[in-house]
């Protein structure tokens, strides 16, 4: 790669890359994101590559190993372009048929196609409901880009927006454009990015920094990871545009070390930028200089908070400080520092490539553009989905997500991670945007969307989030450190059946204190999971306190396992699998669980064949049906 010294040289390179590509050549895009890797997609890719060269198809077919496609439920996932034929749940032994039938003769391999809930086979990506109702503005290019090759990004108008900014716009014009687009922060708070940029730009000081917040801490969200793994240049381009508008010449990327693949792809992408002259001095001959340093986080949820993150970049512990002066004015080393989340940065080039009018035509009055959610939990189509702001929760969960697993009943959806709350069924028509979610006691957060069914205990979920937060609270301020601990203690007591009637009131009182008095957003939002579940599912709390009953059969101390003699056929499967030999019974006779020995590990419930479903969980005053 030779260093590009002008914008015209970048355009010439882009033309050359495109001209070298044969549009008729089949492009087999195989997802190699974290989800598909867990399904051993590497073996599929190896077989595919060797099979294609073995069959002499290399001229006709190109294999692209890409980042996450989003449809993690059915991985490993493959799409064949230009047609967009999609195959799912591919095993290494399926590859031979894909090569012989589809790649050689254009025939479909029926068994790998998507079958929709009505039983209709859908061969094309665009016809599959999971993709059809999405608007994949930020995430869509993941299908076409091999993150190892900057050429793939350049071929899709990569760095066009940067060239337009450096070549024909003043920093003020760039800033105005982002303000006009009303791009709001995708990391949680939804603060307008343009205003943040402006504060940093106008703050006194010669040295300024821009920072990418890739410390994705929400334990149920992985979209930032998937953007960085699959399309790192989109984030880097956004960052450069922001730096130009702000007048920063150094940037940091703060990324969790738990994301090794994202770190690897990011570092490679930065190396490619440097080689092409998109980083360093006098970028594209514009006179603009910029450098990037990657900083790996060592595991601390609170370090995603802006002041904590910046202290962590300085090599110290990542504890927050009171923010009488914002980090946009005094951040890293006391210099004005602009911090935006991965998804926010990835939106920036799109605003310039497609225009402000186009961008603001998507979304609601107050929230423009799209948002990526990780749609997970008890939903049929687990995966990453990108939808226009304002789509209803119902459409996301039922149209895209395909409804609830195993025919169970929807109970609630949790958004916003540990800082968010649960939203009950009667609010499913809520349009998803920053303001609407905050109004009902939850929040957008980074985009975790955890679907819960009738088998999810709301008290247990509140306990879960508080356990996470108690562990992650840095301990600097008393309200957060002690308040969360006390709330957690009460919730643990409720889950153990040791709750007292006054506990619920105390819980609410402590929650209000923690919300009001904590130093940073971690503490201020920590009571949300408790308060929202209390608001919408109070009866469940009361059942735990008054009846010592967990209606969802989750809280271990409140349930016991039984075998229904009317249903048990004595197959012996539970008996053989029980790790503590608590089950007895002779062949073809109903089995019995010894409750003194039972450790409630759930194994018998899992292994009992669905046609019998003889293992039952009971709680409170519930009894087995009479024989």
């Amino acid at each position, binding site marked *: 790669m030779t260093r590009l010294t002008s914008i015209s040289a970048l355009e010439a390179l882009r033309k050359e890359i495109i001209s070298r590509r044969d549009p008729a050549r089949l492009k087999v895009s195989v997802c190699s994101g974290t989800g598909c890797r867990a399904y051993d997609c590497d073996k599929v890719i190896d077989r595919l590559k060797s099979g294609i060269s073995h069959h002499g198809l290399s001229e006709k077919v190109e294999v692209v190993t890409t980042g996450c496609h989003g449809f*993690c439920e059915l991985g490993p996932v493959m799409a064949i372009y230009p047609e967009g034929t999609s195959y799912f749940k591919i095993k290494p032994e399926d590859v031979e048929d894909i090569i012989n039938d589809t790649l050689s003769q254009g025939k479909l391999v029926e068994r790998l196609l998507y079958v929709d809930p009505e039983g209709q086979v859908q061969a094309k990506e665009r016809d599959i409901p999971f993709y059809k109702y999405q608007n994949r503005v930020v995430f869509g290019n993941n299908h076409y880009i091999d993150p190892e090759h900057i050429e793939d990004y350049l071929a899709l108008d990569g760095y066009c927006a940067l060239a337009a900014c450096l070549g024909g716009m003043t920093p003020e014009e760039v800033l105005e454009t982002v303000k006009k687009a009303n791009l709001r922060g995708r990391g949680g708070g939804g603060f307008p990015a343009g205003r943040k940029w402006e504060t940093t730009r106008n703050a006194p000081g010669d040295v300024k920094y821009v920072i990418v917040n890739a410390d994705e801490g929400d334990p149920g969200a992985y979209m930032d990871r998937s953007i960085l793994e699959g399309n790192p240049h989109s984030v880097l381009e956004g960052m450069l545009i922001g730096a130009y508008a702000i007048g920063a010449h150094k940037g940091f990327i703060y990324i969790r070390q738990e994301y090794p693949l994202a770190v690897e792809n990011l570092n490679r992408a930065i190396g490619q930028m440097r080689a092409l002259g998109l980083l360093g001095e006098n970028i594209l001959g514009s006179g603009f200089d910029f450098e990037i340093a990657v900083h790996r986080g060592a595991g*601390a949820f609170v370090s995603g908070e802006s002041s904590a993150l910046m202290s962590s970049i300085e090599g110290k*512990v990542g504890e927050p400080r009171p923010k009488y002066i914002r980090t946009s004015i005094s951040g890293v080393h006391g210099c004005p520092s602009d911090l935006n989340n991965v998804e926010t940065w990835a939106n920036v080039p799109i605003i310039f490539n497609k225009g402000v009018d186009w961008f603001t035509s998507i979304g609601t009055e107050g929230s423009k553009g799209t948002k990526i959610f990780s749609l997970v939990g008890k939903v049929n189509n687990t995966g990453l989905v990108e939808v226009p702001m304002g789509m209803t929760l119902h459409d996301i969960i039922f149209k895209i997500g395909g409804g609830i697993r195993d025919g169970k009943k929807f109970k609630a959806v949790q958004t916003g991670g540990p800082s968010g709350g649960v939203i009950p069924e009667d609010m499913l028509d809520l349009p998803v945007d920053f303001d609407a979610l905050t109004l009902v006691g939850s929040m957008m957060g980074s985009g975790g969307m955890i679907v*819960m069914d009738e088998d999810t205990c709301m008290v247990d979920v509140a306990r879960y989030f508080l356990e996470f937060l108690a562990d992650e609270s840095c301990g600097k301020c008393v309200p957060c450190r002690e308040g969360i601990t006390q709330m957690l203690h009460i919730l643990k007591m409720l889950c153990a059946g040791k709750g007292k009637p006054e506990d619920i009131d105390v819980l609410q009182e402590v929650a209000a204190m923690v919300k009001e008095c904590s130093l940073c957003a971690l503490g201020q939002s920590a009571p949300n999971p408790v308060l929202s579940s209390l608001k919408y599912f109070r009866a469940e709390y009361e059942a735990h306190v008054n009846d010592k009953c967990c209606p969802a059969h989750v809280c271990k101390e409140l349930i016991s396992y039984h075998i229904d003699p009317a249903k048990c056929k004595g197959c012996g499967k539970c008996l053989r699998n029980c790790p503590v030999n608590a089950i007895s019974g002779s062949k073809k006779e109903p089995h019995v669980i010894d409750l003194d020995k039972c450790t409630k*590990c759930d194994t018998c419930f899992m292994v009992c064949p669905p046609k019998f479903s003889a293992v039952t969980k009971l709680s409170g005053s519930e009894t087995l049906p009479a024989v």
Partner: protein
Amino acid sequence: MSYLLAKVDQIIDGYGAEKEALVQILLDIQHEFRWLSRETLLHTAARLGLPMNHLYNVTTFYKHFSLVPQGRHAVSVCVGTACHVRGAMRLLDRVSQGLRLSPDETSADEKFSLKTVSCLGCCALGPVMVVDGKYMSNPTSNEIAVIVEECE
């Protein structure tokens, strides 16, 4: 100088022995030796001109650092929200029982270390257990026993 400290020096020099790079240096040392021994910490403190209490402050604050040796086989159970609602606590109980270890413990023979992690990004498989990079979706007690057996 021992091989160990020579390696530590190499890592520190890679970052120009800058104080600011402390977290990055410790991450690399941890990656190399799977834990941070007192010897390596003392050496790092001396090289960077930092007091030991600063190093202990940093190493005990961040989750990833371990001040005790880690087992040869890393076993993690995902306790992210999606895995939690699909029964991660029951899985953790089973794994704990199978390995005879509590989370964050290492067996006496340094064979296994059990950890919990938050969201691995493979929520469709949840609840998930990972043994040395191999993913398993909700294994039963017997399946866990087989895995324990197979590890050297």
